[in-house]
């Protein structure tokens, strides 16, 4: 037990050091921008990983939650002059409530049907954002005012970096705590076998709904912040492909691994920027890398490498 606890803090400390030292390696605004986007995606993916990796439920509708919160913040702040922080919290409450209402009927479904239902939800939100042009600006999108806390205005990518870095650390900490709590154990039981979990007295529906709401709120907070950061939103952000991208990040980094979620988000956000050098071959190489990782590291990058390290160290010990 002690060692589990200490390894948790070691990981969090390492993450804090990486976040603190990374700016030394970043040369310009653009590189800070990529770092900020990695942070945004990582937070969403950490939430989604709780749902997919631990509770074993899939969602293809999380971009809808993000979009809803982004537009809520954009409209209330830009049109009605709400303080951005109030909008962010209100959006999170609203999205959480929506997720709660939807979760019960939707999470009764399993496998493909669950994927279909969440997919439908995401698409409905995306259609509403496209059609209600009077409110949302329609397919052309709308401009968003800067994020302010009191009289301090967050504009530069460098300033955002620290906010997003802190939030990312907080998200990882929350996620690790949740997983190590009775809730986390209940979730893993649900993932293992829902029937067996119910037999031993786990209220499976309650836990599934809870984690669905938590992951939706993670997406909502990122949605609100991202709208202010980019200073522009369009319905594409709430689109189906964004949801799929996040699911890929979860799977690539490693399901049921919080750090895997961070690594998955980092790789999939940065990789397209690196591959632009290949021009016409970009998409081909990108696909090739995805395929290779999935074939050679089928459990995702972090769990597979973790297993590899354990094997190497046990071999070394055996050799002594």
């Amino acid at each position: 037990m002690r060692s589990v606890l200490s390894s948790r803090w070691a990981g969090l400390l390492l993450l804090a050091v990486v976040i603190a030292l990374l700016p030394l390696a970043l040369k310009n605004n653009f590189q800070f921008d990529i770092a900020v986007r990695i942070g945004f995606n990582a937070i969403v993916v950490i939430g989604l990983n709780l749902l997919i990796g631990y509770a074993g439920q899939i969602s293809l509708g999380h971009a809808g939650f993000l979009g809803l919160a982004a537009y809520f913040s954009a409209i209330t702040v830009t049109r009605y002059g709400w303080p951005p922080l109030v909008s962010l919290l209100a959006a999170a409450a609203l999205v959480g409530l929506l997720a709660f209402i939807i979760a019960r009927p939707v999470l009764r479904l399993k496998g493909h049907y669950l994927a279909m239902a969440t997919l439908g939800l995401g698409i409905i939100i995306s259609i509403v954002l496209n059609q209600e042009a009077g409110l949302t600006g329609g397919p052309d999108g709308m401009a968003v005012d800067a994020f302010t806390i009191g009289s301090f205005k967050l504009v530069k990518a460098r300033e955002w970096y620290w906010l997003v870095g802190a939030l990312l650390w907080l998200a990882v900490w929350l996620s690790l705590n949740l997983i190590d709590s009775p809730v986390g154990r209940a979730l893993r039981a649900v993932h293992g076998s829902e029937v067996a979990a119910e037999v031993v007295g786990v209220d499976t529906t309650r836990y599934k709904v809870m984690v669905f709401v938590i992951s939706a709120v993670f997406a909502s907070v990122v949605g609100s912040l991202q709208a202010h950061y980019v200073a522009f939103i369009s319905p594409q952000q709430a689109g189906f492909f964004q949801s799929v991208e996040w699911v890929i990040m979860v799977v690539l980094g490693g399901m049921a691994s919080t750090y895997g979620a961070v690594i998955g988000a980092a790789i999939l956000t940065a990789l397209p920027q690196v591959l632009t050098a290949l021009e016409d071959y970009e998409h081909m190489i990108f696909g090739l890398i995805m395929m290779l990782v999935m074939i050679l590291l089928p459990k995702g990058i972090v769990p597979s490498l973790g297993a590899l390290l354990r094997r190497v160290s046990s071999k070394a010990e055996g050799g002594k």
Partner: protein
Amino acid sequence: MNSVLSRRALLAAAAAFGMLTVTAAPSSAADTIKVGTFLAVTGPASFLGDPELKTLQMYVDKINESGGVLGKKLELVHYDTAADPNKAVTFVKRLIDQDEVDVLLGGSASGETLAVMPMVEKAEIPYISFAGARKIVDPVQKWTFKTPHTDTMACQKIFEDMKKRGLTKIGMISGTDGFGASMQAECKSEAGKYGVDILVDETYGPKDTDMTAQLTKIKATAGVQAVLNPGFGQGPAIVTKNFKQLGLNVPLYQSHGVASKKFIELAGDAAEGVRLPAAALLVADKLPDSDVQKKVVTAYTAEFGGKYGAESVSTFGGHAYDGLMLIVDAYKRAGSTDKAKVRDALEATKGYVGTGGVVNFSATDHMGLDLSAFRMLEIRNGDWTLVN
């Protein structure tokens, strides 16, 4: 077995992480002018971005072969946005901060252009967009210009033609996609100025396969003298077919959104007599020799068509051609690569004849086109004919 597996896993991991190390920025030599461009080469708007990029690459090579601009070679730095404004923002940050470009061209779609404009204004870089929306140049932003006509102008051109034919009571049927919705709103706000009454206003989804219901309602509305269909893609072709099937015998107007041979193919015989506004490029071979644009549009058609096939010539590639030529012209007149001087020279552009029309920029007009940029066409015998 065990060691084989782990070696493989290690290799894959190394490959994955190796890709992560960000490549160093290319050195910016002083003897080149860096032209940054971000276009929707893939994704839903690839029909815009693809000819735009091909045009830019082709003419940048051509300009460099003949000695470049101000004795400097042009260097094209391109990123593919897939029409995602979010990606466009990141790529434009990259073009400005990492690649340190001298001038920005692109934004195939309105969304991505509007998303990057605040950044461009802050970075103070001359920028020409290839997107349609009026919001890009209204109100005028200091550093942002654009080459394509707006849908407002298409509405005006259509209403002008209707008025000439004495058609003042019309029905509208619009697509609900970005293009259709935007043009529908513009036409509704312009109609009054031309004394045109919109008696009935219907819409259809971009993926609908039958518009009989909406058209039946238009047919049943008493006094409709003409029908206008702002739309894009296959929708207008279906409207045109249904229109004929229902035996509506009033003139049908389409928008510049269907100004391609594909539309005539899809709509078939039903397209006979349909009128639409379009850029001169579409009818390059049918323009009279006296037309000011004749020379430039036939040259572009011959060069681009010669390399990529005649059927791939589109007005979108033309917008990119105009953008590049306008900026080259501005460099020559500024006589320097100083961004502020180039911008001032660009704003002072007068009488530039491009594929999209005759461009006259000013401090209050960063599009510089008037209604003469549009030609009214009628489809006869499966081909375009000019209407005077």
